[in-house]
């Protein structure tokens, strides 16, 4: 993510005295986040561990993570962007309208206290989850939160980090950025990368019926995507690589069983703070790894004639 003001979880552990979770429920979705990286650990500049840190949770409902928090702020659903905008005004000492504040479901005192705590922190961090980035406002919400973090650096050190979900999604972003320049939804059909979320993102492509074949690996869209997108996957030749026969495998033309990442397949995965970590698989699988199968498909395609149309002969004269 370009221009993001961020850090590693090691820095959070050693330095952060104000930890804000926004639209995420780490107690249930990232169970060791508190104990391994953020709240309870003692750090180099946080000698007393939990006692030296303040945790604020912002969410639309009181999840089990609220128990761990010092302050829980219940924002009204779909008012995250408004709340972020008010906070951005408050940290700069600007006046805010009472009715705008009322909209968020919080009081001016609560928001002012929050803004002051962020300004006074020695090292603050804003972790944001899907409750922020996948609800009304979507990436505008994330952008507002990232701006808040950036602007707080006029007063103190402040960073932001998305709470990434399953497995190696972070690695996916990093690898695509490295190889194509864009983090996801990259169209290579013209032989060079094009990026346009909403046009080249999977659900949009499938809903429009743009794809005429699909290779699915490390995911089970047949269990998670909107039904019309799944229907399109069932219509076209779909190929699945997975350690199990999944929902998607059942509607596919070709399924290949592969070794499970980190269990019986070695390699590298990225942590949510973009730190690459090696896997230490304890088991030996009877199946090939995804890496090996993708490479074999690559070789099998490479044997066929090039798909590009032959070059037009240059005009003479």
């Amino acid at each position, binding site marked *: 993510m370009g221009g993001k003001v961020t850090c590693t979880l090691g820095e959070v552990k050693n330095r952060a005295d104000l930890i804000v979770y926004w639209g995420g429920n780490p107690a249930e979705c990232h169970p060791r986040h508190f104990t391994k990286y953020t709240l309870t650990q003692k750090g180099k500049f946080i000698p007393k561990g939990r006692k030296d840190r303040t945790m604020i949770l912002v969410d639309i409902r009181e999840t089990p993570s609220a128990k761990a928090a010092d302050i829980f702020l219940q924002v009204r659903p779909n008012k995250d962007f408004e709340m972020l905008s008010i906070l951005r005004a408050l940290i700069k000492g600007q006046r805010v309208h009472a009715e705008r504040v009322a909209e968020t479901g919080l009081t001016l005192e609560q928001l002012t206290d929050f803004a002051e705590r962020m300004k006074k922190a020695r090292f603050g961090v804003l972790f944001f989850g899907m409750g922020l980035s996948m609800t009304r406002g979507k990436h505008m919400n994330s952008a507002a939160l990232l701006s808040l973090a950036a602007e707080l650096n006029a007063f103190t050190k402040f960073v932001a980090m998305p709470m990434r979900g399953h497995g190696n999604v972070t690695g996916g972003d990093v690898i*695509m950025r490295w190889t*194509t320049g864009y983090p996801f939804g990259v169209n290579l059909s013209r032989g060079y990368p094009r990026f346009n*979320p909403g046009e080249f993102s999977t659900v949009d492509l499938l809903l429009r019926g743009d794809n005429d074949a699909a290779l699915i690996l490390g995911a089970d869209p047949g269990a998670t995507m909107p039904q019309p997108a799944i229907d399109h996957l069932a219509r076209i030749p779909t*190929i699945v690589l997975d350690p199990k026969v999944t929902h998607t495998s059942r509607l*596919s033309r*070709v399924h290949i069983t592969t070794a499970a990442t980190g269990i019986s397949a070695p390699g590298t995965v990225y942590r*949510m703070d973009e730190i690459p970590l090696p896997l230490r698989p304890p088991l030996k699988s009877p199946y090939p790894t995804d890496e090996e199968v993708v490479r074999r498909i690559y070789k099998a395609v490479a044997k066929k004639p090039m798909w590009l149309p032959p070059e037009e002969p240059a005009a003479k004269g």
Partner: protein
Amino acid sequence: MELTITKNATCTFCGCVCDDIELHSDAERIVETKRACILGESWFRNHTAERLYPDALIDGKPATVDEAVEAAAEYLYNAHLPLVYGLSNVTCETQREAVALTEMIGGVVDSHTSL
């Protein structure tokens, strides 16, 4: 049977990617996990090295990996706009290969991030 102990194993179930897990395993399964949370523990216990599924399936019928690789290559090669999607529960090395394959077949490569 003697158990193999794997120290500092890495859990890939959530974005925390804890790399301090101790695993005790026999030839086929992980029987004990240390330091993993409940999600991580069930993740490690859920996957075994048993041969529970056919090597490959073509139109729902068991096939060899060679046949399946050929069939996959044929479908992807013939497509005008193939989609390569997922990339969550795979290694970076696999992701790199997937991007290379997408480039060759002239497709779109995408991950969970776009959802």
